[in-house]
């Protein structure tokens, strides 16, 4: 359980950063104007990553899925930044 939780804590952090960032970039208007409202979502997202990561049946699944989600989230973030500007 604790290995899966660690996966949620360590990989959940950049994931929550990326998803929060995505939200801020996609928010209407300039990104800086949505900074604080976006940050509200950061803690719940990170907590969700940690509490759901323990549900994976196997440790490897937790690490791989979260790593995959990170890749997707940062790819989307990269795309959103191109599109937003």
């Amino acid at each position: 359980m604790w290995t899966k939780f660690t996966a949620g804590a360590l990989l959940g952090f950049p994931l929550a950063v990326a998803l929060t960032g995505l939200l801020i970039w996609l928010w209407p208007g300039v990104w800086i104007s949505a900074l604080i409202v976006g940050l509200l979502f950061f803690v719940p997202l990170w907590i969700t990553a940690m509490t759901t990561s323990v549900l994976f049946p196997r440790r490897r699944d937790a690490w791989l899925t979260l790593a995959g989600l990170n890749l997707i989230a940062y790819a989307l973030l990269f795309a959103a930044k191109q599109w937003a500007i």
Partner: protein
Amino acid sequence: MKSATLKLYRSLHTWTGILCGLTLFVAFYAGAITVFHEDLHQWQNPGWRTQGQETPADAQKLLTTALAAHPELKGNIAIMPAGSHSSPNNEAYWYDPKIDDWAHKSLADFDPQTRPQHGSELADFVDSVHRTLGIPVAGQYVMGIVSIIYALALVSGVLIHLRQLVDDLFAVRPGKNKKRFWQDAHNLIGVISLPFHIIFAITGALFSLFVILMAAFNFGVFDGQLEKRFIEAVGTVPPNSPQASGKPAAMLSVAQLTARARALAPDFEPSWLGFSNYGDSNAYVEILGNTPQTVSRFTAMTLKATNGSVVKIQTRGERDVNHAVMSSLYGLHFGNYAGDLVRWAYFLLGLSGAVLFYSGNLLWIESRRKHRQQQQARAPYRMAQGTLGWCLGTCLGISLAFSTALLAPMAGLDAARWEKIAGFGGFFVAILWSFARPPARGAVELLMVTAMATLAIPLVNGLVTGDHLLLTPWHGQWAIFGVDLTATLMGAGFVYLAALSRRRSRNGQPNSVWALDGPPDITATTPDAQADAAPIAAR
């Protein structure tokens, strides 16, 4: 929910609770007191109670005096107006790179006639205990991590309780089964105050980890742009702060600028005027403050100090999303948005939060008790001692700091220094004491000492200042009366708890860590290894 999943979250809840419960107890106990931060200022500075309030003209005099004394500030200085922080004095604030902190002085401090005397900083001390456990620098990040663990404990706690949530919510079953009673109380407090706890977990984490988060977002999401544009989101000062032009110009007075701010935002109560380039033609002032009777009460504006024209304004009905959200977060965390009723509600919720974390540790201890046998493991015993020492030590330390704030100046001692020594001293002595005594005795003794220290608060105030409990209501000194009355009630509460603990130690179940006779393998003076091995051998 599957029972395996339930078990998973139960263990997550147990460990997160054990990890952050004690620190959260401190944060909530000190936080409940910090709700009345401004009122404490009046209590801790007896000189302020009778002194007349300084005027905006005095603020202007302070501004010119401070800038004349500190030309190196180049007109970058702030004024905290009299009355805005319960202080009758205007205070000048500036950033001092030598101490890497803000320095502040009032008009009296600049006068060579009056000896500079350092008053009590009790309210700030309690606030720093609330935010950082009183540990400089690192404490803030510790509490940030604790806030995250706290959020995890909340989520897992609700998940494991979810199935019986509706049926069992109001079932508080007192009786022989103490664990059931504490479990019911723990669940009831936890669920009822859940919205309040969610707010604190999120805002606490954001406030404490802000610097780290901003660094992560700056690097991970905004390609280094956040650092440059951050001030746009939270401040009203222009992002590329105007440089001094070098041309001197006439400034509007503090009174004129305050009046201008009030004209722009009705009901606005300025509590901070931050000047940049004062005296220069390119001078401006950022005015921060509160607008009462609204949740998002934090109000901010930047004006040109030469003519009062608006550079940027963030007031109720006229602000961007960032300021609206930030302002609401402040309001919801500080509980200062709807007068005294809400502040008392926050005080009680804060104390009940402290009870929640304390009862969590009690449950941990209780659920490790082996029934129908006298011999018990060592861990719950130590946990009982530690929980007592830590939690009561917090209450004791804070109560001692209160009395010291008023007593130290009488002995010619620096109150700001000695109230910290009394606070930390009380805390550590309580911890040492709790580990030296069986929990059944330690609980009663520490509760009685804490009760004495808390009941001493109104007595000390009455003796030192003459503003005692029977007098202050007649003089309309409600802040002073409130502090004294609260201390009296809480002191009585500690006496009551001591009586309850004493009764339990005599009449409770004998194999509990709280029983006077105690589990024999612990109280026996055998080496640790033998004591731990004994129950296993017996099986």
